[in-house]
C-alpha cells in the first residue's frame, strides 16, 4: 500500500539517503560507486513517488534500486576485466537483497559524515559531497545553491570521491581518538554550510534559508549520533541562536539591518530557548570549545530584549577567552567591537591597529567597515566616510555594498 506524497515527503526521503548509502557501501565496499548508485535511486524516487505514491517500505525500495544499479556496475566491470576472479568470487558471495536491511547500522551516517569531511578535501568539495551523500540533496540543487552549472558540480563531487578513494580511507567507524582528531573538520564543514546560508557569498540575496536549515538538520543528526560531545552541541546551539535572528536581518528591499537596529520582536524565541538550553548543558561538561564560546556570545546578544540591554562586559570577557582558545583576525575584529562598547571607541580602534600588519586582513572589507563604524563613534566623520567607501569597494556581497555605501552617504549629509 502506498502513501500519498505530501509536503513532508521530501524531508523523509532526504533523511533516508545516508542510511541507504551506509547500507549499500557496507555491502559493496565501494563508497564512490555506491554514492553514485544511491544518487540515481534518489532521483528515481523524486521522479516516481510524487506520482505513484510512497512505497510501504521506502528505505527498502531505495536500497533495491541502488543495489540493482550497483549490480549493473559490477557486471559491466566483470565484462570489462575478463579474468577477474576476485570480482567473480565477490559476486557469488553477495547476499540476496533482503539481507541488506538487516545489515543497517545506525553508525553509518556518522561514518559517512567523517568520510565526506575528509581532511584531504578542499572545503568547497567537502561541502558539496556532504550535501549530496549525507544531506540527500541532488546535484542540481547543490549547483543551484552555489550558482555553478550542474555538470561542474557533478565533477567536483566525483573528484572529491576520487580523492577519498586514493586516500584509502576504510569505511568504518572512526576510533575515539580519530573522532577527536577529525571532528573539527566535520564541524567546520557544517559551519561553512550554515554560514553560506546565513550570509551568502554568491547571488544577490543575503540569506538562503534552505541552506541554513540544511546545516541545522545535519548538525542535529550529528548531535544524535554523538550525544555527549560538547562541541557538537555547541555548534548546534550557535546555529540556532544565530538563525533565530533571520527574520530581522533584512528589510523589505532585502537591505541589510545591523544587529543594533533589528526589530527583536521578530527573533525566533523558540530557537533561542532551545539554543540556550543546549548551550547550558554543553557548558556544564567543563570543556570550553570554540563553538561553545561563539554560541555563548550569540546567547548574550539574543538574551537582550533591546540592543541597549546587551551585556557587553560579558561579551568582551568571552571574546578575550576566545582569543586565547582560537585566535584569528575575525576574533580580533569582534573583540575590538566589544572593547569599544565597554571602554569606548578609541580603545576599539587601538585594537584594530594590530590587524593592519596582518596580510590576511589588510585588504578585507570587514576591517575597513569596523574601523569606519568606530571612527564614526569618535566623531571623525571624514575618516569614517573614507573607510565606509573603502569597505563598500572591497566587499563582494551586493547587500553589504549597498549598506556600506548608504552609511557613507548618510554621514556625508544630504
Amino acid at each position, binding site marked *: 500500500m502506498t502513501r500519498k506524497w505530501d509536503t513532508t515527503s521530501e524531508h523523509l526521503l532526504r533523511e533516508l539517503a545516508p542510511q541507504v548509502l551506509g547500507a549499500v557501501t557496507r555491502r559493496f565496499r565501494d563508497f564512490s560507486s555506491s554514492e553514485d548508485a544511491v544518487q540515481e535511486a534518489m532521483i528515481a524516487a523524486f521522479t516516481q513517488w510524487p506520482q505513484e505514491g510512497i512505497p510501504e517500505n521506502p528505505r527498502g525500495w531505495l536500497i533495491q534500486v541502488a543495489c540493482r544499479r550497483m549490480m549493473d556496475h559490477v557486471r559491466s566491470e566483470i565484462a570489462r576485466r575478463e579474468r577477474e576472479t576476485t570480482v567473480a568470487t565477490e559476486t557469488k558471495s553477495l547476499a540476496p537483497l533482503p539481507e541488506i536491511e538487516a545489515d543497517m547500522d545506525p553508525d553509518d551516517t556518522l561514518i559517512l559524515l567523517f568520510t565526506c569531511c575528509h581532511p584531504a578535501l578542499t572545503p568547497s568539495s567537502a561541502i558539496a559531497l556532504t550535501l549530496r551523500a549525507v544531506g540527500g540533496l541532488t546535484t542540481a540543487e547543490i549547483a543551484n545553491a552555489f550558482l555553478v552549472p550542474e555538470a*561542474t*558540480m557533478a565533477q567536483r563531487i566525483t573528484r572529491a570521491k576520487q580523492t577519498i578513494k586514493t586516500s584509502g580511507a576504510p569505511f568504518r567507524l572512526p576510533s575515539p581518538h580519530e573522532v577527536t582528531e577529525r571532528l573539527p573538520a566535520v564541524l567546520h564543514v557544517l559551519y561553512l554550510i550554515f554560514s553560506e546560508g546565513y550570509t551568502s557569498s554568491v547571488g544577490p540575496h543575503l540569506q538562503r534559508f534552505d541552506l541554513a536549515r540544511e546545516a541545522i538538520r545535519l548538525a542535529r543528526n550529528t548531535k544524535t549520533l554523538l550525544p555527549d560531545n560538547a562541541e557538537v552541541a555547541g555548534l548546534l546551539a550557535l546555529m540556532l541562536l544565530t538563525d533565530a535572528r533571520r527574520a530581522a536581518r533584512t528589510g523589505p528591499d532585502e537591505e541589510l539591518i545591523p544587529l543594533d537596529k533589528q526589530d527583536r520582536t521578530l527573533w525566533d524565541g523558540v530557537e533561542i530557548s532551545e539554543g540556550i538550553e543546549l548551550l547550558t548543558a554543553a557548558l556544564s561538561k567543563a570543556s570550553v570549545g570554540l563553538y561553545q564560546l561563539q554560541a555563548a556570545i550569540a546567547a548574550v546578544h539574543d538574551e537582550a530584549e533591546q540592543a541597549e540591554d546587551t551585556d557587553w562586559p560579558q561579551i568582551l570577557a568571552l571574546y578575550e577567552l576566545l582569543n586565547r582558545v582560537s585566535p584569528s583576525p575575525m576574533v580580533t575584529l569582534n573583540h575590538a567591537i566589544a572593547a569599544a562598547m565597554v571602554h569606548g571607541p578609541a580603545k576599539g580602534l587601538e585594537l584594530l591597529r594590530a590587524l593592519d600588519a596582518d596580510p590576511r586582513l589588510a585588504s578585507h572589507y570587514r576591517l575597513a567597515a569596523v574601523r569606519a563604524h568606530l571612527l564614526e563613534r569618535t566623531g571623525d566623520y571624514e575618516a569614517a566616510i573614507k573607510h565606509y567607501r573603502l569597505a563598500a569597494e572591497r566587499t563582494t556581497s*551586493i547587500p553589504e555594498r549597498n549598506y556600506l555605501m548608504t552609511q557613507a552617504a548618510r554621514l556625508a549629509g544630504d
Partner: protein
Amino acid sequence: MKYILLMSGTKAGVEAYHAWPKQDIEAHMAVLHRISQDLTESGEFVATQGLAEPREAKVVRGEKNGLPVTDGIFPESKEFLLGYWIVDVPNAERAYAIAGRISAASVNMPIEVRQFRP
C-alpha cells in the same frame, strides 16, 4: 571564489584574426573549447561566452523623446570585449594559471582577471 577572465581586442586586431588561414582559426577554437571542457572536468567551470563582431557594437546613452540614443562610433584604439570565462577556484593563483593557458592558446594576448561579485 569566482573570477571572470576577459579577452579583449581592437577592431584592427579582430580583422587580422579574420585573415588567419581557416584551419588556424579552427585549431584555435578547438583549443579554447578543450580548455572549457577541462574546466568542467576539474569542477571549476561556471560559464563562457563569445561575443559577436565589434563592428556591430553600439553604445547607448540614455533616452531622448522616449527613444534610445545610439551610436556606433568608437575610437580606433578601443579594446572591445571578445569573450569571457567565469571560473570558480580556491584562490587567485589558480585563476591566473587558467588565464595563462588561455593566453598561451591565443598568441599570448593578455587576459584580464577580475574577481567576480556574485
